């Protein structure tokens, strides 16, 4: 039952005040590190966090969601968490403007995680823009399980490609596509995927990025044996399952379509079950 799964999902969610340990510009993004102590143990690749923005007198009343890029434990700082933040509107710009030592109110970890295969498989990780953030942490886990890990990253332009040096060590191959050709190949990440699927070179695709990209990958994997786990991005008011704003039409095992909350039944969902053609619509009532 969906409800039961949910009540498992956020069971380790905590509401804490963290300190910013680092804030560095990387291309068009900010790489931000937060001290989160023992909570690193509960964070899985795919989980996200919800951050209070704007300070005490903010007119922004809702949290902002960011995917956990990776967590680590260090002797000096204890458990730390890294986010890759694009300065988009008022809230994310406020976050990017916070300096080292500033305190930030965060609820974490939230939502579903990428499913990790129990036996070694050939995995393709596809990231669009800051969507690559959680993929490097995922790659490490997959490598540790003996998987072959290939990665494709795409963005409109080079400054929107996030691909840290050390991240490249955990993948077997990394290919970059930009729509303006300013980095890697000219074009979109979806183009090579078709070939890889036809060649039966991959068993599972993990994707994170704009909804259009996720939809395109889902269409490529339809009627194939390739599993597609995608991390969706819907506007969220609460991030914890209480408001019903973040829903997506998803087909269940019984063939019934439900409007599932992407914050607790996602962000990681089975791409083949999401009814992409119904997003932004309401299913017909039979």
């Amino acid at each position: 039952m969906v409800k039961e799964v949910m009540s498992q999902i956020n069971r380790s969610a905590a509401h804490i005040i963290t300190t910013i340990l680092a804030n560095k510009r990387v291309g068009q993004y900010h790489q931000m590190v937060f001290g989160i102590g023992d909570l690193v143990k509960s964070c899985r690749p795919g989980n996200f966090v919800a951050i209070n923005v704007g300070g005490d007198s903010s007119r922004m009343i809702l949290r902002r969601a960011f995917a956990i890029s990776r967590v680590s434990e260090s002797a000096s700082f204890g458990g730390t968490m890294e986010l890759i933040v694009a300065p988009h509107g008022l809230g994310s710009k406020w976050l990017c403007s916070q300096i080292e030592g500033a305190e930030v109110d965060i609820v974490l970890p939230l939502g579903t995680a990428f499913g990790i295969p129990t036996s070694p498989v050939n995995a393709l990780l596809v990231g669009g823009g800051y969507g690559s953030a959680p993929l490097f942490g995922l790659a490490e886990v997959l490598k540790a399980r003996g998987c072959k890990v290939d990665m494709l990253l795409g963005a409109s332009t080079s400054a929107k490609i996030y691909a840290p040096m050390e991240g490249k060590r955990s993948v077997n191959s990394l290919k970059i596509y930009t729509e303006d050709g300013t980095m890697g190949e000219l074009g979109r990440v979806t183009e090579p995927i078709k070939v890889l699927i036809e060649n039966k070179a991959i068993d599972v695709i993990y994707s994170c990025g704009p909804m259009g990209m996720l939809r395109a990958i889902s269409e490529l994997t339809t009627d194939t044996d390739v599993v597609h786990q995608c991390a969706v991005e819907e506007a969220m008011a609460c991030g914890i399952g209480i408001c019903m704003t973040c829903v997506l039409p998803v087909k269940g095992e019984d063939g019934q379509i439900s409007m599932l909350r992407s914050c607790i039944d996602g962000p990681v969902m089975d791409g083949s079950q999401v009814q992409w053609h119904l997003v932004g619509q309401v299913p017909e009532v039979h």
Partner: protein
Amino acid sequence: MSEFDFSTTLGNAFFNTPIFTASGCASSGKELAQFFPLRDIGAVVTKSVMNKPRYGRPTPRMAETPSGMLNSIGLQGPGIEAFLANDIPWLVEQNSRIIISIAGETIEEYATLARKVRSVAGISAIEVNISCPNVENRGLVFACDPDASRRVIDGVRRTIGGELPIIAKLSPDVTNLPDIAKGVVESGADALALINTVLGMVINIETMRPHLGGNTGGLSGPAIRPVAVRAIYQVHAVMPEIPILGMGGVSSGRDALELIFAGASGVSVGTASFGNPHAAVDIQRELRDLLIAKGFPSLKSAVGYAHREADL
């Protein structure tokens, strides 16, 4: 100050503490239980449930606005049967006090819902959300039509009998709120819930169209608190004996106190829980501390305090 009495009543329903969740802002309770034990607050008011399962409105369903938000969820839900079978037993198990909110498209549907809720064990009250379009009358919202409001409450009252308190939840989007309030009280409401969201709209500057899938949406959050305070004050002024469950933009104990001084006997916390999952318990603690600091012996002694004569 251990003798401070924080309890409240709505009709014949008793609650240990006066802070509740707001309908639609706590789903069925389970999700918030990750953050605090539900029995620590006055009651969980569940998301308005309709007779049949509903998909609700298309996305986008929300837009943040200055100190507020718009939502157009459209009452997505599992329908009353599945709701009573799956969600209520779990809440009862938690020792949570429960108020079930119902919503219908016809006067008949409200009565049907009331009949199904009537015999459920462990329910403290029924909240009747009449801010729904009346399909039998050109989609005119029940709560905006004095006559339809009365008939809904009348139907629910007849079905329920005398046991379960009825809380009629009203919309502020009317010319004469005290009038509507008097009507539903005459028809059998034991208490009033004030206020539901204010009708609003946001246009997306990029698409140059209404941002929400449903075009208009309900405005909630601190932006509307002055409207809630006014509504509660106006209604308490004309019917001081009718308990009010106040809500609208409460995000601190200070805010809750404002509604209580205006005339609320209990306060629901809605949108604030989106920004702070602990909002309800935090607010409850702050409210208690404030009341004690101001020397009130009980919550009840503060209800409607802003209406007292100037020379008292």
